[in-house]
């Protein structure tokens, strides 16, 4: 709870800074990570229902912005929008999580293979920047944003390949994985996903396809062990 408060406080401080791009009314791109973080930190609980008005009040923006953020989250399958129902946060079960991870493995093997073809320096820099931010969040104990940034790393890697349909499909798997990760309080905190991310960037930069595919595979192995073990423990309680 303290954590969430201090995080909220920091966000407000950040919002008050006159950063370029942060001037004027908040946009969909500003509000999207804040709502996703709120979901990941369970300030919006899984399986809870909420209203557009309620979220608009909390984040101080219009309903139309909230609607578009929810539309994006619903493309990513994080939020379920159904006619005549309030929006709801998705709660994938163990079998669904297993299938999501399998689909991720197939998709990301192909994607990382493609990313090695001719990576642009600007993209590599952005990947390293995301890893650095993730590391900083972990050091500050901000688990929600760290999970989201970790997901953004995978999505940026996917967007570098130029295969839009594959990248889009991954776009619906990664946020669901983030959701599953956030839901299970992972015991082993010494996993250091960001170090594995850095090794992947190096392999991609060197155009070393076999190495990149192998590292991605291992990275997803670790993710799977963590998630399925955590889910298994939760289920047996």
């Amino acid at each position: 709870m303290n954590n969430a408060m201090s995080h909220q406080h920091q966000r407000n401080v950040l919002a008050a800074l006159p950063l370029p791009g942060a001037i004027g009314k908040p946009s969909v791109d500003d509000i999207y990570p804040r709502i996703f973080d709120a979901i990941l930190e369970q300030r919006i609980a899984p399986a809870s229902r909420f209203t557009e008005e309620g979220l608009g009040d909390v984040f101080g923006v219009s309903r139309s912005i909230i609607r578009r953020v929810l539309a994006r989250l619903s493309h990513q399958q994080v939020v379920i929008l159904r006619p005549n129902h309030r929006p709801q946060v998705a709660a994938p079960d163990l079998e669904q999580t297993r299938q999501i991870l399998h689909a991720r493995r197939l998709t990301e093997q192909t994607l990382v293979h493609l990313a090695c073809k001719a990576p642009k320096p600007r993209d590599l820099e952005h990947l390293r920047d995301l890893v650095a931010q993730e590391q900083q969040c972990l050091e500050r104990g901000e688990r929600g944003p760290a999970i989201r940034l970790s997901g953004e790393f995978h999505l940026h890697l996917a967007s570098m390949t130029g295969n839009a349909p594959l990248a889009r499909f991954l776009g619906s798997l990664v946020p669901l994985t983030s959701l599953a990760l956030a839901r299970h309080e992972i015991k082993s905190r010494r996993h250091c996903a960001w170090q594995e991310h850095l090794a992947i960037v190096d392999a991609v930069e060197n155009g070393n396809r076999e190495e990149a595919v192998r590292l991605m595979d291992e990275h997803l192995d670790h993710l799977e062990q963590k998630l399925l073990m955590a889910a298994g423990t939760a289920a047996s309680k």
Partner: protein
Amino acid sequence: MISSSTVVNSVVEKLRAALARGQWRSGDMLPGQRELAEQLGISRPSLREAVIVLETLGLVRSMPGKGVVVLETNASDIHEGSAIAGASLEDVLQLRYTLEPFIVGLVAQSISSKEVGQLRLTLMDMREALEANDNDACASAYIAFHEELFALTSNPIFHSVVQQTSNALKQSADVLRNSPEHLAERLEENEAVVRAIRGKNSAQASAEMRRHILREGQRMGIELNIPDDNLGT
């Protein structure tokens, strides 16, 4: 086996793709319910549900007594729903090769004998069309087979990808029609997939689908750029 929510989702995607293509502009009214339902080949209740989803997404608004008006939207919001627009045949084949063998393996595990029967009927349509030299009907049956097969997947995470590859197949329907010499091969490869599914042999079904997509690439003159060990089992 197609649940109504699958129908609604596919209608939502169709309408969203039409909006993204600019078939209707902001301020336009959608055609009347009866006409639109007929065009899309669905029931009016399904259409109504789909319109409510689009309304929730902020793409349209229902005006009671008047109809459904298209709202001004950020084009990129819509395009998130149809990444296929900027995709090449190679991109789509890569997507298919990456995922369809896996999905068909899942289908093989859960399919009922009635559903297998439906798939075999569609392949029979394809064979009849082939024997009658009706390339149009044969290409349509090929696309229908693909749609029926993947509609059987129970996990909603695959629905968007299935929708995308179906749309891509329809867009490349000319390629299918204009290469009648390949239609017999396509039919044989699909029959091999169904035989494996019928035997509930998941690994074999995956392998046959992989072979089909690789052959499809060769027929189109596309060499797929894929990891060697991506065997997808």
